[in-house]
């Protein structure tokens, strides 16, 4: 089992959701985050004092996947989130030790 975390632009959420629904992924969690990479922020003036807007708002999607589905999910997310400009984001895949469905107590792949 794997955990797939993706940092995407907030405005691409709908597009990513469409791509994921098309391949049958029905569960995901969203966190509002801020960050910067190569996109960098910019500077503004507020009442005469310059300040840096470093951290850009992004969304982090968290999806759990069985090992055999990871590739197609990653492709779907990337297809939905890509604009070609800097700041499109990143996808990280990390191994998952255990998953438990709270309502039924199921574990493993059937809990995803």
């Amino acid at each position, binding site marked *: 089992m794997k955990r797939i975390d993706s940092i995407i632009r907030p405005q691409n959420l709908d597009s990513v959701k469409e791509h994921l629904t098309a391949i049958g992924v029905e569960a995901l969690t969203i966190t509002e985050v801020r960050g910067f990479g190569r996109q960098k922020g910019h500077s*503004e003036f507020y*009442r*005469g*004092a310059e300040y840096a807007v470093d951290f850009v708002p992004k969304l982090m999607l968290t999806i759990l996947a069985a090992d055999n589905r990871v590739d197609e999910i990653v492709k779907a997310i990337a297809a939905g989130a890509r604009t070609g400009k800097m700041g499109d984001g990143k996808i990280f895949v990390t191994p998952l030790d255990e998953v438990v469905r709270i309502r039924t107590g199921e574990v493993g792949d059937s809990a995803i």
Partner: protein
Amino acid sequence: MTMSAARRRLYCLLLAVGLYGLLAPATRADEPKPDPAGIATGDKTTVVDAAGNSFAVPAPTDKNSPDYPKNKKDFDDYQSQAAKEPLAVKLADSVGHIRIATNFAWTLNTGYLVLFMQAGFALLTCGLVRKKNAGHLMMLNFAAYVFAFLAYYAVGYAFQFGAVAVNAAPGNLGGIPTLNQYLIGSGQWGFLGGKGFFLAGPAYDAGSNCLTLFEVVFMETAGYIIVGAICERITFWAFLLCELFIGAILYPVFGCWVWGGGWLSQIGSTLNLGHGYVDFAGSTVVHAVGGFCAMALAVILGPRLGKYGKDGKPRAFPAHNLVYVVTGTFILLFGWMGFNPGSTLGATDLRISVVAVNTNLAAVAGSAAALLLWYFMFGKPDVTMACNGMLAGLVAITAPCAFVSPTSAVVIGVLAGILVCLGVLFNERVTKIDDPCGAISVHGFCGWLGAVCVGIFADGTYGSGWNGVGATSYLGHPGQGVTGLIHGDSRQFLCQLGGATLCALWAFGATYIVFSVVNKIKPMRVSPEVEREGLDVPEFGMQAYPEDAVVTVE
């Protein structure tokens, strides 16, 4: 240990003198009686026509005056005519009462508009600061109204208006003849009023209460101005002391000098300086007092943590809610429709329409000037500076609004809009006095400018007889009112320059002296830990925007 006979006699003597001093003025036969029920205010003596000519002719008292024969003849004619038309005289009593009633309604309702400005300023300042201090800002604005009011009720009103009948009796409200004694000073050199403490005795009067309501909300305006400069780092207890100080002493003293019939209003006749110091609705009496008091407190407190980097460059703390900032500014603009036109103390003074238009023109001119200037300087129009520009225009027009033409109002607004921008940058970058909401620039600097503008732009079309000067003619013209430099009165300009500067020195100096001492006894600033966390929880135990509480459902 029993008292010696000599000491007992001394105490008895002191008691007798004290009682006499307290009771005698109220029991003197010639002292005017207060009218708490409002059933004796307004009669044929308060009937005037549009030009201010009185219906009832008073008996001439000055037998040595050159006009005495004419005045005596007018009085005799009136008496004989009145004897022939008794019903007309009775009707005149009703007319006089209705005139006063109209003016009461006007004054009270415009006062309520000014009261509403409290909400506007609370929103404006809250929106301009960081989210973690929103509750603190709201509480400061709220407590300012509460505690300054109580201080003004106790002593402030008496200090400011206790002697108003001597030189500045408000005819539109019936004159308030009972408030006729100074605590310090006398005649045309009054410094502090001395009647009406706790709004009792001579102040327990319908006319006096009408004035009280109107004037207390003006004092409140000066009281909340300081919030804009001292917020995000002042302790609540220190703030309450500031409000009590403003309501009891700082505001009433200068207010007495200018509006209570005090010495500054009389230097037109005592020192031949134009019409004396003129401030129609309070550019200096209200706004500059608040702005320069704020400046002194901001200097004592020091800048917010992190405001200035090690290199001395200012850092931005962006407003957390621009929605509040703009809404608050609009509410202040609306309330100013009470602030300026209301200062005639009467709807029977039809200059109120000119005042209302001038006020709005200066507001929009100030905002446009600030917005455009900022756009040229920084490439984008700053929402908060557009709002500050509007307020700057309003503050600057507050003194001259009744005395200038609409085009002059536009010019004054533009000057204020430019000044506020330069002032904000000046404090931010040069003096390094941290002023989160721009209160010092908007109210202090532009308040001073407003009073000086009276001395430049006043065109003489209004204010004939102001402060007792030139009632029949001024500068050679009958009916000429308050006049500025452009229209030929340089003495008025000098008077305004001096008076406005004196206001700044008084407000800054008195505040700085008193609160430097307070600060030495117990520091008025919160600890750095509290300042970093935000003052909402440490000072008041609650947040303005609490995170969703986790609630267990039983």
